[in-house]
């Protein structure tokens, strides 16, 4: 790794100030993307700002009819939370499938969203549930927040503090894992809320999470896997690599969407 200074602010404001005034500073949450990247010398932040001692960033609670998850909530906490399991079990299920048990003790929802890896799981949930990403400066909707491969709308001194999830009567996440990395080769999150049905796909797209509006319209009429009969997703724009061709990913989207609807109805 290249050299860096390390700081541990006690508040979001202190962290934001440090970010604003230090050139090449980076926030570190669970560190399980950032530390490996730094070990490979692919990133050389001059300063790491550790959020793990900032109070109040890891709460998980219901606020009105939204499930609010603090940015520093670890995947293991979300997966095991009785509040999440009672109100939005699909989210607990998603969190339980990230990485492995030790990784889940460190990885955070804020880190996952800020990084916007095209094969990460949380972006699919945020997009499918139309969650609100709350930062120290503003509130962002998924369409504004996700801007492309490893790119978000976050300003250099902006810090995600929490994510507000609307509840869904029916929701499920089905993940087809890359057997080696355990990232999503394709992951589909389906959510039925009073206002709409959303189908969000991760892992397959070159630019990150996207919605399959064709599927959404069909499912809005009838929320049943049969509604997807005959519907396919085009392969262009999808990732093609040694783990799977674009055509295979397009096929998997259909398969996983059907399974997700079945699971959501169960």
């Amino acid at each position, binding site marked *: *790794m290249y*050299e*860096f*200074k*390390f700081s*541990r602010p006690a508040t979001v404001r202190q962290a934001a100030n440090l970010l604003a005034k230090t050139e090449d500073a980076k926030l*570190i949450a669970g*560190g*399980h993307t950032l*530390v*490996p990247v730094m*070990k490979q010398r692919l990133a050389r932040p001059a300063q*790491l700002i*550790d959020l*793990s001692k900032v109070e109040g960033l890891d709460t998980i609670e219901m606020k009105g009819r939204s499930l609010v998850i603090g940015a520093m909530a670890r995947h*293991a906490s979300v997966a*095991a939370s009785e509040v999440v399991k009672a109100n939005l079990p699909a989210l607990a299920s998603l969190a339980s499938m990230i*990485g*492995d*048990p*030790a*990784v889940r*003790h*460190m990885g955070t929802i804020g880190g996952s969203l800020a990084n916007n890896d095209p094969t990460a799981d949380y972006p699919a949930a945020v997009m499918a549930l139309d969650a609100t990403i709350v930062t120290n400066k503003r509130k962002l909707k998924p369409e504004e927040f996700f801007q492309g491969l490893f790119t978000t709308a976050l300003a250099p001194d902006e810090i995600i503090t929490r994510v507000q999830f609307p509840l869904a009567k029916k929701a499920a996440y089905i993940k087809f894992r890359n057997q080696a990395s*355990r990232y999503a080769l394709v992951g589909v999150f389906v959510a039925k809320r009073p206002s709409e049905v959303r189908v969000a796909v991760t892992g397959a797209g070159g630019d990150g999470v996207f919605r399959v509006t064709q599927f959404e319209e069909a499912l809005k009429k009838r929320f049943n896997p049969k509604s997807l009969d005959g519907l396919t997703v085009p392969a262009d724009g999808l990732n093609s690599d040694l783990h799977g061709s674009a055509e295979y990913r397009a096929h998997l989207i259909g398969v996983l969407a059907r399974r997700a609807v079945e699971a959501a109805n169960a």
Partner: protein
Amino acid sequence: MAKVSVTVNGTVHSANIDPRTLLVQFLRENLRLTGTHVGCDTSQCGACVVHVNGKAVKSCTTLTVMADGADVLTIEGLAADGAPLHPMQEAFRANHGLQCGFCTPGMIMTAVDLVNRKGNDLDDHTIREELEGNLCRCTGYHNIVKSIAAGAKAMSKSA
């Protein structure tokens, strides 16, 4: 340089270290606790698993500065030198749960964490799923799974 104070197996260690020092390096090189191993160095194989504040963590992907003020348990901390083995260690011995032994400390630390989270009655499917983050090149995992099931039961007796 950064000042850190880490409690390891019950003893407080203070040091002035380069912030780049990984927790696994601090344990092995500064504290000479070489039971924790560096396998892949890329957070996949689990040979480096230790407990930080009671949770299994990959120490090759954790900076020591991030464990400042924390309570760390390594494989050496499961049983004092010369004392009887921890029930999970004993289970690995009795069930031939290792061959070369390189993955074993990580397997045992993961197993103890698993019991802490999921209790003493673990079925094979659960154990195999929970071992996703631990790789073994020698055994084919079969006896590791047996060892963990036995060790989990044995841990309830000594609770």
